[in-house]
């Protein structure tokens, strides 16, 4: 083996070793940063007894935030999180308006005006055996 190629070989080995080290180090760095310290968000909300929400009522549940609707079909719930960029929308007449970018929704959560494009999300409502209403955001 000539002197020149031998030197190149060491250079190649060194570069390769350092590249692998670097990749492993970057992997470790990514895993280091990619750690969630706070507990996962709550996805189930116990909002009390079903009898507190009589038929025909539309109740604002601020902690979710959601609107609990009790009509002839039973319970349903609309998420009050704007589908555009996640601001909490407010009641506006019979429908809802987003304070951030002016999206409007009707009473059933359908988009009346952009920039939002998707209708409001329907949340799963569960009435447990103890007659407690649970809203699921997942």
């Amino acid at each position, binding site marked *: 083996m000539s002197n020149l190629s031998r030197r190149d070989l060491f250079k190649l080995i060194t570069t390769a070793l350092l590249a692998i*080290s670097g990749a492993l180090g970057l992997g*470790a760095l990514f895993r280091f940063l990619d750690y969630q310290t706070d*507990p996962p968000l709550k996805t189930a909300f116990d909002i009390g007894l079903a009898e507190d929400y009589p038929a025909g009522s539309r109740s604002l549940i601020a902690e979710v935030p959601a609107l609990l609707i009790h009509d002839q079909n039973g319970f349903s719930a609309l998420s009050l999180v704007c589908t555009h960029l996640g601001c909490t929308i407010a009641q506006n007449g019979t429908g809802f308006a987003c304070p951030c970018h002016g999206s409007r929704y009707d009473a059933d959560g359908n988009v009346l005006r952009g920039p939002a494009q998707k209708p409001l999300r329907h949340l799963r409502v569960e009435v447990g055996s103890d007659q407690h209403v649970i809203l699921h955001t997942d």
Partner: protein
Amino acid sequence: MKRLIALGSALLLLAIVAAWWANSRQPKPIVLIPTLTGKPEYCLTCHSDLPEISKSHPIKTFGCVICHGGEALALNADLAHSTMRGGANPSDLSVVQESCGGSSCHSGTAEQNNNHIQRVLTSVQATYAGAITNILYTYGAEGDLTARFGIRAVADAQVTTSTGVPALQAFDPAGASNPAIQKFAVNCLFCHLNAQPLPGPQFDRLSGCAACHTPGIGSLPPGQIHKLTTAIPYTQCNTCHNRGNYDLRAMAFVPRSDQPQAADRVQNYYQPIAQFTKCEYELDCIDCHTRTEAMGDGDIHSNETQIQYIQCRTCHGTPTQLPSTKMLTDPNDIAFRQAQLNPVVDLELGQTVIVTDKGEPMWNTRVLPDGTYQLVGKATGQVFTFRPVMGSGCTQNGIDQSSAYCHTCHAVQR
């Protein structure tokens, strides 16, 4: 030089690979976020094999740290255990307030009867006031039998009975001149719920709530029993109450050297002269002795006799009187809560149960239609039926009705 750098690079890579390997060897943490605290704890990483401690304390709600303390985040056993409350026994009375207390838990309610921690702290089982008082009186250090000292100082803001005393000081033998009192202090202050337990892991958890509510705890090494129950078998009472005998001349406690055998209960009792009727060794202690007797009524009493009131007649009545009974009409009656905690009977509204002199329902009894009575063993579920004294051939007069009189005829041969 280039070769050295290549070698150095190899070493660095080796070190990084070793670091990855060490990282992958870390135990996979098991997180638990109890709904009561909402804070993550990682105890289950090692302790996932422990059984649920009781139906009333589900781990999903309570977690571990709220009772045991400790470092919730640490994955190193030494650090994690370093701040555990009361070590192996979070219910030791020195820390019980933090472990088991709180207004939603076992202390702090306005109703004195529900402040279990205060009741236990003031009870004779914790203060040892009776023995201390008797010794001081016997050796002339005190002029009467009113308790002034307990194992630790304790006060009661709300004296409700005629025998209750407002406060006890911690018993300090330093001032006592009598050698017997000194000896008593050295040898006899280890038992009882508020005492510093004897050295040794078998005694670690024989103080505080666990002494009674964690049966079997004295006989097994720490960590093997994780249980809280109100179904306390007599064997647990025996752990302390049948552990040996006093030697008053030497002023010492002599632990028994023979192993008590469960099969032969009556022969096994430490005092050969003690007398028992059949029910006293067939039932469990808690079948008759109520929670108020065992844990106190919230008052500080000078001795055991002031708080022990269950007698044979509580259930059997006297030749002239049937036992007191009560029909359960209030769904909030404490009987229902007790029956729910230890579901050996299906208690229903309208049932009639025996009540004690203090009006406590003996929730595990019922009056049968034919005028006899039934008792269900709280620890065993075993059903016993029994008759009242009234209408039997018993000729004992109606005044002398303490159990000593019953034993004259009804004690079994030992």
